[in-house]
Each structure stands twice: as C-alpha cells, then as structure tokens.
C-alpha cells in the first residue's frame, strides 16, 4: 500500500512543483527586464553613473603631480614608469615621461592611495579596447612638464586650485589618514 501511496505522491509532487515553477517563470514574463542595452540604447553613458570610487583606467593630472614617485614604488606590478630630469641651468626638474601600461595594470588602487595630491587616480572610464597592445600604454607626458610644488597656505592660481581640490576630493574617498591611518602614514 505504501508503494502505491509513494507512487501517487510522486505524481502529485511533480505536478504541483512544476505548476509552481511555471507560475514563477510566468510572473517574470510580465516584469520589467533587468538588463540594459549597452552601449547605445541607454539614456546616459555608463561611465557617468559609476561611483567616484570606481577603479577604472588610470589617469594622471600632470599639473598637480609632484613627482614623488610614490605610485611607481608602490605599484605591485610595476606598470608605472616615471622619468624626471633636472635641467642644469635652471635647476628646474621636469618630467620627461610618465607612462602607464594599462595592459599590465590590475586596477588595485594602491597607487592612487599613495599619491599625496590625488593627481594619479582611477577614472570612471573602462572601455579600453584597441587593436594593438602598444595602444594601451598611456603616455601622459608628450613634452617636458615641470613638477608641481604644493604651496603652503593653499593654491592661489584658480585653475590649479580647482585641480588640487578635485584631487583632494578623490583622496577623501579612501579611509584617509586624518580619520586615523592608512597604509603609509608612518614611514618605516
């Protein structure tokens, strides 16, 4: 008798659970889809909707880069190369090149964290497809650029001040030293 009961129970269980599953999937037929039609049929580009913390392709604001080489040193994969030259006459130091190999970069964010002015930072850009790996090397210096020297008491030049502010705003996103630490507050 129990065998018959099991037989009947098997059938009823199958029917009811399939019925329930069908109800779930049918209910999804009348709900809105979740996906977006990347890249063209969206009201605004995805880049603009990403949070400030998003770790996209690295960008460097050369105007406020102090040339401290902290990023180059901290990079675990050594994809950043910086060249600095001191001119013999004026004693002014200039960048000869500042290259980042995006192919190698693993978007860990350690360089942005180490930067004192927030000049190197992750942008919201993530579309990097190109035909040649060499095209993924970002050259930030095309002609020699002088190093930025932070002034005491705040930046006076309005265009630079804006940039410094952007950099600092970016730095605020990290669990920053003011609030109690961060890798690199104590020189070891």
């Amino acid at each position, binding site marked *: 008798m129990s065998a018959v009961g099991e037989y009947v129970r*098997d*059938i009823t269980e199958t029917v009811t659970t*399939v*019925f*329930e*599953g*069908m*109800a*779930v*999937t*049918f*209910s*999804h*037929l*009348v*709900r*809105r*889809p*979740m*996906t*977006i*039609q990347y890249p063209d049929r*969206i*009201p*605004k580009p995805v880049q603009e*909707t990403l949070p400030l913390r998003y770790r996209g392709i690295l960008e460097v604001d050369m105007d406020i880069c102090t040339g401290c080489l902290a990023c180059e040193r901290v990079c675990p994969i050594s994809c950043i190369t910086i060249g600095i030259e001191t001119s013999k006459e004026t004693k002014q130091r200039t960048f000869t090149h500042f290259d980042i190999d995006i192919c190698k970069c693993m978007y860990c964010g350690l360089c942005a964290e180490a930067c004192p002015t927030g000049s190197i930072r992750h942008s919201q850009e993530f579309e990097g497809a190109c035909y040649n790996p060499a095209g993924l090397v970002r050259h930030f210096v095309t002609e020699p650029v002088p190093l930025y020297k932070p002034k005491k008491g705040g930046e006076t030049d309005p265009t630079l001040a804006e940039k410094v502010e952007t950099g600092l705003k970016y730095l605020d996103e990290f669990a920053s030293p003011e609030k109690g630490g961060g890798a690199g507050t104590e020189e070891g």
Partner: protein
Amino acid sequence: MQQLLNQLIQEGYFHGAPMELVYAGFMLLAAFVVLSFFVAPLAGITSWLERRVWARIQSRVGPNRVGPQGILQWLADGIKNLLKEDIIPTAADRRLFALAPYVVFAGFFATFVVIPFGSQLIVADLNIGILYLLAITSLVVVGILMAGWSSNNKWSLLGGMRSAAQIVSYEIPAGLSLLTIVFAAGTMSMQGIITAQGWAPWNWFLFYNPFTFVAFFLYFTAALAEGNRTPFDIPEAESELVAGYVTEYSGMRFLFFFFAEWGNLYVIGAIATTLFLGGWQIPPVTDHPILAGVLQFIVFFLKAYLWVFVAMWVRGTLPRVRVDQLMSLCWKYMVPLAFICLLGTAAWMVIWPQGNRLASFFMFLIGLGILGLFLKRVSFQIRHARPVLYLKPYI
C-alpha cells in the same frame, strides 16, 4: 488543395499531359510553397520568439536589433549559417554525416501533409492520419542516430543513443494517449476528428471526459520528449554532452537540425490542437467560404502556437531529467497512466456512447478553475518577490 487541382484539370489546363506527372509536379510545388513560405519562416520566427520568451523569463531583453523588435533575427542567423564553412570531420562517415540532417528534416516535414489548417486547407486528408503521423515521426530517430554515429565523436554517439532510446520509448505513451481520442472520435482521419468536436471549449475532446483531460497532458509531455525538448533534452544536453548529436555539425547542416526542432514544436502544437482542442472549428459567424477559411486558419494557428509558447515556457522553467529517470518516467508512470486513460475512455464510451454533455461542461469548469488558480499563483509571485531594486538609476 486536391479540389483546386481537380478543378484545374477539368478546365483543361493540363490537356494531354500524363496525369501522374501533373500530380507529382503539383505535389512538389505544394511542398515547395509550404516549405518556403510557411515552414521556414515559422521555424525561424519560432526560434526568435523562443529567445524572446526565454529572455523575458530571465529578466533579459532578448534579440531586438534586427528588424522591428528583432523579428528578423532568424533571417540574419540563417544567412550567417549559410555563409559559414561546412565542416565535415576527417574521421566522420562522410555520406551518413551529410545525409543525416535531411533525414531528420524530412521526418518532421512530412508530418505537414496531414495537418489540417482549415476545413479545406489540408494537403491530404488520409483516413489513417494519426497512424501516418506516428509512423513518419519515427524517421527522425534514424536521422539522429545517423548523425550521432557518423560524427565519430563520443559525445555525439552518446547523444544519438540517448535520443534513440528516448524517442522509441516515448512513442508508446504518445500513441496511447492519441488512441483515446481515436476511441472518442471513432476515426483516424484528422478532419474526421475535428468535425467530431465543436467550436465551444466544452465540445472539445480535451474536456470530453476526465481521461482525455489527463491524456492531453500525457500526450504533450511525451511529445516534448519526442521532440527532444527540455525537460527531456538529454540527447543534446549541453552541460553533459556538449551538444549531443549536433556537436560536430556546423553551418547549414547544423541549422537543419534546429529547423526541424523548432518546426517540430509547431507540429506538436498542431496535433494537440487537432485532437484535443477542436482544431479549426470556429463559431458560425460567416458563410463566406474564403473568409471562413481565413478565420479557421487563424484560429488553428493561434491554438497551435499557444502550445509552442507553452513548450518554450516549460523549457525556461524545468531542469533536465537523467537518462534512467527518463526511462522510469516513461515506463513506470506515463505508459500505465496512458493505459488507464485508454481503458477509461473505452468504458466511458460504453456507458455514454454519445458522450456526456454534463461531464464535459464540468470538466471545462475544472479547467477554468485550474487556470484561475494558476493566475492567482502568478499574482502571488509578482506581489511576493518583486525585483524592485535597481541600484543603477537609469535602468
């Protein structure tokens, strides 16, 4: 169709020509017309619709780029597959390999002969229509076995073997559940079965008695299994056998298998409609023969397509069964149940030879009740777990 031909002959269009050739030529023409203007777009659009239905079930959008709402996607895919290289593996049995898709396709295409799209719209109203159907669909097994064997690939072979076992087994419950209707209608001709029903739902054989009601679902399940559809898609189970018997195929030959699969879906729906859902029967609204024909076609098409949709929806819902479970499901559950339905209908025929109108109506109400319950569950699902959270503002 035959009437049209006879009329043409009588009017002397083919004066002097040998009648056999005329008939053969006409049949070929009919096959060509049906194939290129009905079956091909039908299978194509079914494939598109399946992808859209799946996508919506899965909270996606689905193909919507080619043509309005992506309805021409099948055309793009077809052209792509035509242009693709036709690869035949070196170790394959070339002749069998090349032939297999056409055998499968022929097996499915030949069923269109007996499908009644309207009271006049049928290629041949055989008096053994159902027998013909059961016989001709078995041709598919041969093709799939050929594909599985000739590919000389172990996954293909496993897929072919599974498929053969599955289709041969499921012929039995499918045939038995169709027989219940043959009992009720007293004929094997497709048109005869349809005329034995009425346009109103309670006159359909689906609600003829409780046994035919069960037999319908048995038939549908067995037909899904015969058509290698989820939950019985084990011959081409992509997570187990890569792609089963189609693993080595590419280009147009590959497409032919799927052509057959999607077309077959429609055939399943058409048979279910003919036998259980009153076929092309429409309420007496018009006397005009052409208008009535069009209406009949539309009604038939929609009814059949409803089951195509259900098959897609089932595919989006259920997991796949295992080989031994497939067999035990067939032999332990479906065959006995189909026999019960058969005997029950026979007994019913003895008690009420003309059928029981009250019981039919009662069954109809039960059917409505199940539908109502289903809609209630659907609304419960929507209320209970609504994916309302869209973290990105623009979605």
